[in-house]
């Protein structure tokens, strides 16, 4: 760990209340803690009733768990947010250009900015996408950029989620719950709304419909099914957008179109917001054992008969090894200096980097290149001797599978605990929509919070919680 004092988003590094929290603090100081504790329980009851649960992989199918919710909002000032948005938009545009290039001329490789092997040798690279023109030129319709903060206005990108970022239903339900429990807070503070996200999503997806689609394109959400850990979110988004929620078994290719089985026959779909991984999308083109996908959908896609959001093959852009090249990628495609910082990253495939990582394992965070959800990662400073020894063996066996980063002094936000306000580390995932008509960023996003004291792991599967995230209107 660094010796720098941790930056708290409410109190800074000292005892001076930061401006965005001023009105909230006045309110909080006048509140009776007993009432707030009751409200905390009420929030849990509301979540349980709404069914906003997730299934933990590896547990009994019947077990549905709630992600803990903390009633103290995270508050971001309007000016700070606007600045952040510029960086996010720049990065999202660069990622899309990068994907187009990867599946077309690979100029960035020719220019020597990324080694060829990083592309062709990458598991997430889909040769089937070479030369394919996605409708409207959009690959990443929905992106979640994971950010951490280390000081006032100092944001780092921790991860780009360009495949199927999840969590947006929590952003919406958290706000809904806060509005219901503490309406007075929203009278006192001018909080930018997030509730129109489903409408914007529907609009953005419709704007990406293939040529020849009707004026109101038919949009559907594809889910792996009721046992998927994010099923709640899939049904939530379909419900809020007013579109059908389909599974692979509801779909088939009919007359060159992907169509869903309705009670009076098959009806074609123009835009499919799929929450199924590439591998399972089409048993004819990818994993032949998949029962989650649609046989032949890739052929329809290549012929321009459907929009798949996000496009197949976008995983190569959020791969953790490619991540280390992001500053180059942003510069190469936008001609500008990157506005958002990358966390310095050692690629363990590189011999020198590997030896540096092995020498400093206790100070670093090591992640699997293709991992997600906080599984299979090592937080050096928090790990015991045995864990370090085990991980060292894994690293030596398959160095290409790992990257390493310094442990950042992540900012904290207060949570409501038995003793009042207690600081805990947080990250932020804003949600970005991208269509030929432009980039839309919902003000705020999902704040995840590590509920254990000192912990840096915010993933819900590892005991993290969430908070409502406010962006104030300045």
């Amino acid at each position, binding site marked *: 760990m660094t010796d720098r004092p941790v930056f708290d988003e409410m109190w800074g590094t000292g005892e001076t209340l930061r401006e965005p929290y001023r009105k909230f603090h006045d309110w909080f100081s006048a509140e009776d803690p007993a009432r707030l504790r009751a409200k905390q329980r009420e929030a849990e009851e509301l979540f*349980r*009733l*709404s*069914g906003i649960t997730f299934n933990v992989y590896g547990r009994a199918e019947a077990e549905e768990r709630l992600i803990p919710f903390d009633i103290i909002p995270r508050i971001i000032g309007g000016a700070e947010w606007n600045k952040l948005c510029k960086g996010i938009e720049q990065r999202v545009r660069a990622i899309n250009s990068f994907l187009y290039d990867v599946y077309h001329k690979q100029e960035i490789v020719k220019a020597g900015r990324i080694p060829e092997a990083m592309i062709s040798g990458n598991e997430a690279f889909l040769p089937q996408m070479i030369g394919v023109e996605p409708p409207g030129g959009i690959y990443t319709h929905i992106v979640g950029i994971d950010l951490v903060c280390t000081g006032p206005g100092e944001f780092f990108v921790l991860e780009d989620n360009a495949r199927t970022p999840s969590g947006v239903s929590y952003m919406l339900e958290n706000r809904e719950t806060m509005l219901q429990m503490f309406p007075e807070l929203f009278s006192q503070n001018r909080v930018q709304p997030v509730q129109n996200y489903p409408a914007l999503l529907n609009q953005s997806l419709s704007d990406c419909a293939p040529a020849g689609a009707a004026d109101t394109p038919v949009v559907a959400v594809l889910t792996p099914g*009721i046992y998927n850990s994010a*099923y709640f979110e899939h*049904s*939530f988004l*379909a*419900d809020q957008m007013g*579109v*059908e*929620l*389909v*599974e692979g*078994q*509801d779909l088939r290719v009919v007359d060159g179109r992907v169509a*869903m*089985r*309705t*009670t*009076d*026959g098959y009806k074609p779909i123009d835009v499919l917001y799929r929450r199924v991984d590439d591998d399972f999308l089409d048993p004819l083109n990818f994993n032949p054992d998949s029962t989650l996908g649609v046989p032949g959908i890739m052929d329809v896609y290549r012929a321009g008969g459907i929009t798949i959001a996000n496009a197949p093959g976008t995983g190569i852009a959020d791969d953790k090894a490619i991540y280390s090249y992001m500053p180059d990628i942003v510069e190469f495609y936008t001609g500008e200096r990157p506005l958002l910082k990358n966390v310095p990253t050692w690629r363990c495939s590189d011999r020198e980097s590997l030896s540096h990582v092995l020498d400093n394992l206790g100070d670093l965070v090591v992640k699997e290149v293709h991992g997600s959800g906080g599984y299979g990662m090592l937080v050096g400073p928090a790990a015991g001797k045995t864990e370090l020894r085990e991980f060292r063996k894994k690293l030596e066996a398959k160095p290409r599978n790992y990257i390493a980063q310094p442990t950042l002094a992540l900012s904290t936000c207060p949570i409501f605990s038995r003793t009042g306000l207690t600081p805990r580390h947080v990250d932020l995932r804003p949600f970005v929509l991208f269509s030929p008509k432009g980039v839309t960023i919902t003000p705020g996003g999902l704040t995840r919070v590590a509920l254990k004291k000192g912990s840096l792991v915010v993933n819900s599967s590892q005991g993290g919680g969430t908070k409502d995230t406010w962006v104030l209107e300045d």
Partner: protein
Amino acid sequence: MLGKTANGLFWMYRYLERAENTARLIEAGQRIALTRLHGSDDEWRAILQTAGGLKAFEAANEGVTKEAAINWLLRARENGSSVLRCIETARQNARLVRTAITGEVWESMNSTYMMAQETLARKVGERDLPGVLVALRRQTALVRGMTHGTMLRNDIYNFARVGTFLERADNTARILDVKYYVLLPSASAVGGAVDNVHWESILRSVSARGGFRMEYGPGAGPRQIIDFLILNTKMPRSLAFCVNKLGENLKYLAPPEHPTEAQSMVSRIQQDHLRRDIDDVLDYGLHEFIETYLDLLARVARQIEVDYRFYE
């Protein structure tokens, strides 16, 4: 609407209705048992028989006892039609069709599930049984009320109703059939004091005592009760009422030019079985009548799956 969604709605409401009727059946059984002066636990054997689960019950239990039968019907995991499993399956289907139902319907379904999980986590003792049964029925009524009060009257609603009435049309017939099985050991008791108590219990279990008196006046007997539960078109749980409703809901869902196969089948059941005189039914034999009718109803259910592309 997706075929899968129609399927999910159909089964969500079938299981919800089944949960409620199984609770009613337990109530009827308990009443018959409590008013019996001596003898064995035959009424529970009869109830298990009509609920269609006697074989599975015997495979999983040693002999029919009151306690085992109630537990089996109320909360046994091995019994797919136990109240607990019905509510779980109804909720599972509600999750599947979450985009088709209103938030109110979903939340009432979810709260029913949460209540059942809690109340039926352990065996329910005799003393607590009446309260638990009332609470369960109140919860399923809440879902039905939310459905009635918040859903658009469109094809979604009609599929929900098709499931409800198909199941209820089945379950009321089964409740009536309990009487046949209870009487099996000695047919001589017909018209005796015990016999009347049985019929009274059956009326109670379908919430129909008051309605029955209004329709038939005091002094009416078993013959009228059978008429009431089979042929009366005002009684909302009678066979005739449920099948009429089923016909109406299917009519809404069918293209106007050509009726579906399921619709024609329902019309035939109405014509051949439910527009008759009660004496016809009794001459034919009540048990035989019910068996024929249940079989026809099951065929309608299978035809609906085909007509509306539930699976392919």
